[in-house]
């Protein structure tokens, strides 16, 4: 990460603007034990109370890293019931990084966040349709399958 991903200028700009970047050594106790770190790189999105919302183990290339961050931020907003902010993250990810491995999950969660904020099933049905059309082999397309049955 330090030799490839973090020197990327787009990654630098995103990290400085949108999150607090915190780096700890792989032997930094008690944090390594508290967060169950067994292998590095070990990347987490946490909030100001230390709660974990998103995690990855292993290298992430620059082209995939910003969408991974957006997904994590969106999941954190979502879990805090901040659906407008969550939807902004998911929409940016889906629109600007549709190629990324994070996109199918963002499509799924966008649908759920739309449903949670409007109580209309259209978002869920749209998530199913987009996942079937654009990411048919993804796990998230399978998880959205029941939404096809909604009225």
């Amino acid at each position, binding site marked *: *990460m*330090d030799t490839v991903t*973090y*020197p990327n*200028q787009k*990654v*630098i*700009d995103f*990290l*400085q603007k*949108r*999150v*607090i*970047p*915190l*780096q*700890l*050594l*792989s032997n*930094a106790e008690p*944090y*390594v034990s508290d*967060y169950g*770190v067994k292998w*590095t*790189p*070990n*990347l*987490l*999105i*946490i*909030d*100001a*109370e*230390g709660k974990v*919302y998103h995690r990855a183990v292993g290298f992430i290339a620059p082209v995939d890293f910003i969408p991974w*961050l957006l997904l*994590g*931020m969106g999941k*954190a907003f979502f879990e805090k019931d901040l659906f407008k902010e969550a939807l902004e993250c998911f929409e940016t990810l889906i629109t600007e990084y549709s190629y990324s491995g994070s996109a199918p999950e963002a499509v799924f969660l966008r649908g759920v966040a739309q449903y949670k904020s409007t109580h209309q099933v259209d978002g869920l049905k749209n998530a199913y349709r987009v996942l079937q059309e654009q990411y048919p082999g993804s796990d998230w397309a399978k998880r959205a399958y029941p939404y096809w049955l909604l009225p």
Partner: protein
Amino acid sequence: MPDKVQWVLDYKEALAKAKFEGKFILLDFFNPE
């Protein structure tokens, strides 16, 4: 914008900054070797 990531290296400092700035934290556990 800086030309490299300005890492916070202290856990409690990062939590305080996150609370003050209303941001989430990217926590990267790394092995320098």
